[in-house]
């Protein structure tokens, strides 16, 4: 068997299929590396999203192989041989299955070096996510072979590919609001992360594995069954698998955007002042620490300054409670990971952190005057306020600069007093109008 498997690997469409999957996956990943540069889980999930292209390609490759088998015309010769059909089909199925799984995993091998230096957190769930993806491409390839054998037309390839992409993208849309159903049967759906702490719910993975394994078994029996009745019986494992999968999965919103609490845990520096980041960003701690400590130093001039800087690991979504006010004594930081896995916009971290401490972010129902807060922030930081990205209004930006220059003209103590007043006003959600200008 192993010799025949090797022959099939060399001579069938298997290696080409694996190569196509590899190239497609690598190209898709590297076109937008910022989508997965934050860590291993992100890479696993984004590769699952690119099943959108890889599964249809696997389907077409299977259809191509099935057509070749059918056109070779060996059926008469093969029927006179003793080896039972279940064993006979194993080399072809095995070769293509191994090749597409190899292609899928090779994408990971090629993209892993990109984040090998900066990704530290490798949860077991990542392996489960990759396994479901590998099962999907293998099932798609085997299904393609079955269709290609039954319908050995040139059109089988493109039609199957369209059907595949139609299913993967269309089924969640058709499931109309039942997100759990869409995520269960379309393994590429729901894989874009809203936050870096996201993971894939274990129950979802288990349910997907169940129905995918059932599909694989069904397709294998379809290939290997000699009699029509056995082929009819082949549908039984699939029905059973789908039923079990639907039962295992909770039918509420808890499967969407599941948060991994271990990824959210804070990892801190050992010396003071303490700077903490989430575990998933733990490789960024050396880059974040100097900036965070600089911000803490700048804030030390205010009364009751924060002593520690933590990453803000709050997430939003259904079922997650509203985050409370920023804890006293802690400066919360938000930052992103850039395409290379390092800190994105490093120059922005200090003003952002200082501004957040000053501004009592988002807790005041009426909102606070952002131009005053911005001017005060940049006075503390000591640099000229740049144009706020996303605000086109030049007058607003000029107003901010005006306020800032007004503060700079004042002597240190008076400016500090005004900024302190702004801070206390923000804590009380008072109206900040005119606090920075000469009254």
């Amino acid at each position, binding site marked *: *068997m192993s*010799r*025949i498997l090797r*022959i099939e690997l060399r*001579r*069938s469409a298997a290696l080409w299929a694996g190569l196509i999957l590899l190239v497609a996956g690598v190209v898709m990943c590297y076109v937008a590396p910022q989508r997965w540069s934050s860590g291993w889980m992100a890479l696993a999930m984004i590769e699952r999203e690119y099943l959108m292209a890889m599964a249809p390609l696997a389907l077409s490759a299977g259809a191509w192989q099935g057509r*070749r088998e059918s056109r*070779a*015309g*060996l*059926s*008469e*010769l*093969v*029927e*006179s*041989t*003793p*080896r*039972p059909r279940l064993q*006979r089909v194993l080399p072809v199925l095995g070769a293509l299955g191994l090749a597409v799984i190899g292609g899928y995993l090779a994408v990971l091998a090629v993209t892993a070096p990109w984040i090998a230096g900066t990704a530290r957190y490798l949860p077991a769930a990542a392996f489960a996510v990759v396994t479901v993806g590998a099962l999907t491409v293998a099932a798609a390839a085997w299904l393609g072979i079955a269709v290609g054998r039954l319908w050995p037309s040139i059109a089988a390839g493109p039609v199957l590919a369209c059907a595949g992409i139609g299913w993967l993208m269309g089924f969640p849309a058709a499931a109309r609001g039942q997100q759990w159903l869409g995520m269960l049967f379309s393994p590429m759906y729901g894989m874009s992360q809203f936050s870096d702490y996201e993971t894939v719910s274990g129950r979802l993975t288990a349910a997907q594995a169940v129905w995918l394994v059932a599909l694989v078994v069904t397709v294998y029996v379809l290939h290997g069954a000699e009699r029509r009745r056995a082929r009819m019986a082949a549908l039984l494992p699939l029905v059973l698998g789908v039923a079990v999968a639907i039962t295992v999965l909770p039918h509420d919103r808890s499967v969407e955007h599941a948060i991994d609490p271990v990824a959210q845990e804070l990892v801190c520096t050992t010396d003071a002042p303490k700077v903490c980041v989430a575990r998933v960003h733990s490789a960024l701690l050396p880059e974040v620490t100097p900036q965070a400590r600089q911000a803490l130093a700048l804030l030390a001039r205010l009364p009751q300054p924060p002593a520690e800087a933590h990453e803000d690991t709050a997430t939003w979504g259904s079922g997650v409670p509203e985050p409370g006010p920023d804890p006293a004594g802690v400066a919360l930081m938000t930052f992103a990971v850039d395409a290379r896995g390092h800190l994105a916009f490093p120059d922005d971290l200090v003003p952002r952190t200082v501004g957040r401490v000053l501004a009592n972010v988002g807790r005041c129902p009426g909102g606070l005057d952002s131009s005053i807060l911005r001017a005060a922030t940049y006075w503390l930081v000591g640099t000229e306020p740049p144009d706020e990205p996303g605000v086109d209004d030049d007058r607003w930006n000029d107003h901010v600069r005006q306020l800032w220059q007004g503060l700079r003209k004042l002597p240190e103590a008076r400016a500090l007093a005004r900024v302190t007043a702004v801070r206390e006003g923000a804590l009380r959600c008072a109206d900040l109008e005119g606090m920075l200008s000469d009254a």
Partner: protein
Amino acid sequence: MRMVRAADTAPTAYPWIVQADGLRVKAGTHLAVDGLDLALGTGVHALLGPNGAGKTTLMRALATVVKPVGGTLTVLGAPVHGRAELRRVRRALGYLPQHFGFYPRFTVREFVEYVAWLKEMPKPEVPAAVQRAIDRVGLAAKADARMKTLSGGMLRRAGIAQAIVNDPELLLLDEPTVGLDPEQRLDFRELLRDLGVDSCVLVSTHLVEDVVAACTDVVLLNEGRLVHSGTTASLIAEGGSSDAGDSPAERGYSALLRRHRAEAGR
């Protein structure tokens, strides 16, 4: 000559390698073999007959590809109807179909190895048996060439190689000399004589010279029925100078057919 295994030296439990009684086989909806009685033992048997006589259907029935709809057919002592013994029978079978399908991207060696695996040959024996089969058909130079690069005659020889790789007791060759040049046909006749010593070889062919040169007996079919079964000498004896044909065997052939059609017409 073929390798002698322990099972071969045991006395056979069956009198004939192929035994058919009133065999009826359908090809699609048409009854191609209609009440055939046949008994074949060791040797090279030729299967002659006009197109549509049911030769290919008979071959397919003997190769256990098609199930008969009537009568009994016993191959290597096992009835074809029973599923249990079919595996044993198929291991000792060699078949070259008329429309020989192959995987174009496989090399000759890989293809014969593949068929050896399909015939459940024991793994240690396979490489030697494959090489031997390829040598016997004269394809040793082309053993590692892809099958799509082979000419028609070489493909046919590759087909013969896959049929003999497991040293079968019953070898069924449907039109094996298609595309072979005269020299290769001579080599093939030599091979047939060699094979016929220990196994039952049934060759379906239109080339009467091959029949006379290599075959020990002749089975003549017409419209699914047996017209004549006997040695090649008996075939030649049936013909006279007034019958159509350029050789004694061809004259015998046309004489037998003419007589059979006349009887059927009555």
